[in-house]
């Protein structure tokens, strides 16, 4: 479970996140939805402890991201924006490296890497150097790397960016599978179809503030809109006025 409590972060005079509180429960997929520059990435970065919040705190399975960052990180699998991998290592070596850094013993990380290669259908390119990988192959490698230590919680920053339709469908299947296994999945997106197709829970965020949180139906009902997209536009429009 991931819980954010009044997170705030500013860069110089710019307040990127003013006050964000949210809950992403186990066994549910939570979508962080917002326009460009709403503070989605900054919020996620504070959750996975790369950025230190100026105010508030985040709890990952009860571990404070501010006071126990190492414990919090150990409970998180992270797919950051861009998802760079090491071009001179093969996909398998990329995953094994993170397995070692997560503290898995040699045999365990070999077995787990083999499992993930099969799960993410990476057999074809797993032992090729990552230099010439397509975007889809890169994202799958980065995802396997995030899952190598079997974390309870998974945070993904715009995971479908640059993926083709087939890869997006495969990713969706995987996230649903993880949810059904009881994992907590939190991902950010600015693509409406993505969120409505996948999420059990939606958090709408704009200008560093949470505007709504609830199931897609609840949000539609509360804003009185016919579709989630309509509801989103109304919510965002309200902040502009």
């Amino acid at each position, binding site marked *: 479970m991931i819980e954010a409590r009044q997170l705030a972060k500013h860069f110089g005079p710019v307040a990127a996140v003013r006050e964000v509180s949210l809950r992403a429960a186990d066994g549910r997929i939570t979508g962080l939805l917002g326009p460009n520059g709403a503070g989605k990435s900054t919020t996620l970065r504070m959750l*996975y402890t*790369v950025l230190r919040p100026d105010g508030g705190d985040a709890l990952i399975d009860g571990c404070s991201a501010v006071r126990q960052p*190492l414990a919090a990180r150990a409970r998180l699998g*992270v797919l950051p*924006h861009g998802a*760079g991998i*090491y*071009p001179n290592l093969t996909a398998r070596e990329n995953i094994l490296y993170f397995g*070692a850094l997560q*503290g898995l013993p040699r045999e365990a990380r070999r077995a787990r890497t083999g499992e993930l290669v099969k799960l993410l259908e990476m057999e074809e390119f797993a032992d090729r150097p990552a230099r010439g990988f397509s975007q889809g192959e890169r994202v799958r490698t980065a995802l396997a790397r995030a899952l190598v230590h079997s974390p309870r919680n998974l945070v993904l920053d715009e995971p479908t960016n640059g993926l083709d339709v087939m890869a997006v469908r495969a990713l969706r299947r995987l996230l649903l599978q993880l949810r059904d296994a009881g994992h907590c999945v939190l991902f950010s997106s600015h693509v409406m179809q993505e969120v409505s197709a996948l999420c059990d829970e939606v958090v709408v965020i704009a200008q560093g503030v949470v505007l709504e949180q609830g199931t897609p139906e609840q949000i539609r009902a509360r804003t009185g809109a016919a579709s989630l997209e309509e509801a989103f536009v109304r919510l965002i429009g309200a902040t502009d006025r």
Partner: protein
Amino acid sequence: MHAILTVFAKEFRENLRERRTLLSALILGPLLGPLLLAGGLSLRLDRGAGEADRPLSVAVAHGERAPNLLGFLRAHGVTVTTVDYDAAAARAAVRAGREHQVLEIDEDFARRLGTGLPAPLQLYADASDLAAAGESARLRGLIEQYSSLLGRLRLAARGIDPLVLAPIAVQDIDVSTPASRSVLILGTLSYLILFTMLMGGMYLAIDATAGERERGSLEPLLTVPVPRQRLIYGKILATCAYMILSLVLMAVPSLSQHFLITSLLRAEVLPAGWVALSVGATLALAALLVVVAGGLYRREALLG
């Protein structure tokens, strides 16, 4: 500790596959320094040898006023050409580069020489032209030799011992030994060693920090449950390993050869172990270069 070693092992192994790191650590580092040194030395030797060997030539105006001086110069291997310049023409000829140097004999030369007064000569040369400056210094040296010869003859003719003119004789005694001269070279070598280590670790250091950030793999790395300083310690350790690799490749062959040559110069007995080490290290470096050449020759891009 475990995380540091993990990062170290990964950076070390990854960079073994990075052509730029290998080129910098294994080829440029060990070879560039010694090559620069050798290049500088041979350039200096070339220039020194070239200068002393080049035949000296001089254009003389009014040579008929000093036949004995010209005879002396010719006897010392100087090619003397006779020209018909006045002061202005001589100046112009040297400035335009038609002549390296022009010697003009003054019309008073013979008369003043005959009466024992200093006899004037004009030597035109361009001091800003380095090659010509060397030549005119050599010519002036010859003329001074001639002048001092005349001086000594005059003293002898007056019954005075020419040694009167040399009240003090300084003798230079060089106490340097081959070993102390080798300290000079070793001093240069310490800069080479620094340079080599720098070249050896530079690329990896850049790649593992700025490169990591550029590739976007820094952010995922920072999400693993390892304190950040351990990550950078591992990277620094890998950089040190490449620096040492580079150093071993450069310093062992160079230093051991240096010590062998000094021992040879001192006519000491060479320890067999030293010779074996030196030969082994040098051959290992050569073998590495051969392997690299083989790899480069296998590339598809060979045909251009």
